[in-house]
């Protein structure tokens, strides 16, 4: 009897974890491996027998394709702009709205965060309509103010920026909240000590506030980077990659290769590229986490 009990005791916790591991195995681990494998094959959906191993051919072809390069460039620009603008804006808003807990500050926070919680589908539809060059609200306002209109999403020059505008609008609120929480975690007496040390407002911000919330800043940069590299829904909903691939992102490229061009091999290769990028960011984040643990 005792041996059975011991075995039961030993096995029990593993049983508890088992279902979650099944989920992870099936839907995370297996797909990761499969994607890597698929990237080395040229898959023929219609005639599976014709699927063959092609080694790095998919990668080589992909890296040479203008489309892929454009997608990488677009995604990189998108990511860079997102990081810089969202970081600056959310920090600014956090400082502005997070100092005192007044009614208007709270309503402001509510408003700023609202877009984040609404579906991208809704947001995209609203902005597509507002940005419509001929009948949209934005151009109507510009005309009323005697300013030049824009083609917004319909010109390859302005499409990416228009999409960025929407993404920034939608995501600023979330990061603002994170920074407000971070700012509030700085003990008040540190600011008082700085006052006594004759530090001005800006100096206090640069030498005390920013360093103290640097873990959160780092976190935000990483999350923003990963999130921006994954961008697909906004693109699909607002421009479908165009005009003229001006807004084709990395994941949109994957999506198109797989579903429009049925080139699973290339889609998988691009997926691996995405995975590597996300992987690097993740490793960066976790390695810095372990270094900064002894902060307070």
């Amino acid at each position, binding site marked *: 009897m005792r041996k059975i009990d011991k075995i039961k005791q030993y096995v029990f916790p593993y049983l508890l974890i088992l279902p979650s591991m099944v989920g992870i195995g099936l839907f995370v681990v297996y797909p990761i491996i499969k994607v890597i494998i698929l990237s080395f094959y040229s898959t023929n959906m219609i005639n599976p027998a014709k699927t063959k191993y092609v080694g790095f051919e998919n990668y080589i072809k992909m890296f040479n394709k203008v489309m892929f390069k454009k997608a990488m460039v677009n995604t990189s620009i998108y990511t860079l702009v997102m990081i810089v603008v969202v970081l600056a804006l959310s920090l600014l808003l956090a400082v502005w709205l997070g100092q005192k807990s007044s009614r208007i500050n709270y309503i402001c926070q509510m408003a700023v965060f609202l877009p984040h919680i609404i579906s991208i589908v809704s947001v995209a539809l609203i902005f597509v309509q507002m940005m419509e060059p001929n009948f949209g609200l934005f151009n109507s306002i510009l005309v009323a103010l005697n300013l030049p209109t824009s083609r917004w999403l319909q010109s390859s020059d302005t499409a990416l920026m228009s999409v960025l505008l929407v993404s920034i609008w939608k995501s600023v609120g979330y990061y603002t909240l994170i920074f407000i929480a971070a700012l509030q975690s700085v*003990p008040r*007496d*540190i600011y*008082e*000590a*700085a*006052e*006594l*040390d*004759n*530090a*001005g407002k800006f*100096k206090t911000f640069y*030498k*005390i506030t920013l*360093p*103290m919330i*640097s873990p959160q800043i780092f976190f935000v940069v990483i999350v923003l980077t990963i999130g921006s590299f994954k961008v697909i829904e906004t693109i699909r909903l607002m421009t479908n990659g165009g005009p003229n691939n001006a807004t084709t992102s990395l994941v949109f490229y994957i999506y198109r290769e797989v579903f429009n061009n049925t080139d699973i091999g290339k889609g998988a290769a691009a997926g691996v590229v995405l995975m590597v990028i996300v992987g690097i960011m993740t490793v960066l984040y976790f390695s810095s986490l372990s270094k900064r643990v*002894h*902060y*307070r």
Partner: protein
Amino acid sequence: MAKIEFRNVTKAFDKNVVIKDLNLEIEDGSFTVLVGPSGCGKTTLLRMIAGIGPQTSGQVLIDGVDVSNVPPGKRKVAMVFQNYAIYPTMTVKENIEFGLKNNKVPKEQREKLINETASKVGLTEYLNRKPSQLSGGQRQRVALARAMVKNPSVFLMDEPLSNLDAKLRVQMRVELIELHNKLKTTFVYVTHDQVEAMSMADTIVLMNEGKIQQKASPEVMYKDPDNLFAARFIGSPPMNVCNLDHKGNKFGFRPERVDITDEYVNDTAFIMEGVVVTREMLGHETIYSVRNEEGITVTVKRLDDKWRMDQKVFVSVKDIKDIYFFGKDGQRIRENDNDYAYCINQLRGVKNEEN
């Protein structure tokens, strides 16, 4: 080195008035301790001197100058916070340097000052460490060094020893007193611990509910309290206080001035018969409490420990000068007051009643 003055100072937080029309002078070069229970306003006053919690109305003067519109950083005042408030993201050196840099002290002079101050507090080897790598005592020294290096006219300290363990606390007490003797700067020190106040101060300002109860040297505080609150706050165990009559007058005497005998003693100012109900033998002294039939309990502190529980004893105070009288309003009735004779009479009556 500066004298500090509060003139008709009021402090309100929204509708809540915590200090009203307070007047106080803190002598230049003194070691003044603001002491009192939580919420009495002592830290509020301290923060007014620093300028980080400015008064709602009234004036604060440092060295005769009204500093109400002078920002904290320009008042030549340094403060050691209760939780040290040292900058976690800077090294010890940068912590100490920060104020100097902001005041545009040239680099060479900065280096000199920092090294001097660091050696004074024993932090020289730790200059390049970050606060998270330091112990509590070391962090406190960083806070101290940061204050010292500014060479301020006033040193403010907000319960700086409360986060240290008992041994370190005693050690730091001595160091702070020595520091004061050396620098001769005005020290304003806030604590809720009356033992700390008594041991460190040359002037104690006792506060309660936003009002000053008494301002005096420790000796005077102990021997000649102004009111009931002061009498009971200073001294441990607190003064025994009993009712004198039905009009609200009271009398009190310190546990350390009480004699215990097995038999009735003549010629005492006060004597009571009772039973020993508790006995705390602390090594160097023993604290008894003796209760009589009516339930009145007298605390006695003695150096001998020969009295036992449930023993029938007499507690007495020999000298009338060891008896303090207090009026209905809590104010002290002294020898030269009108009511003093009345009190003496009443006391005799009490004594007779008891026996």
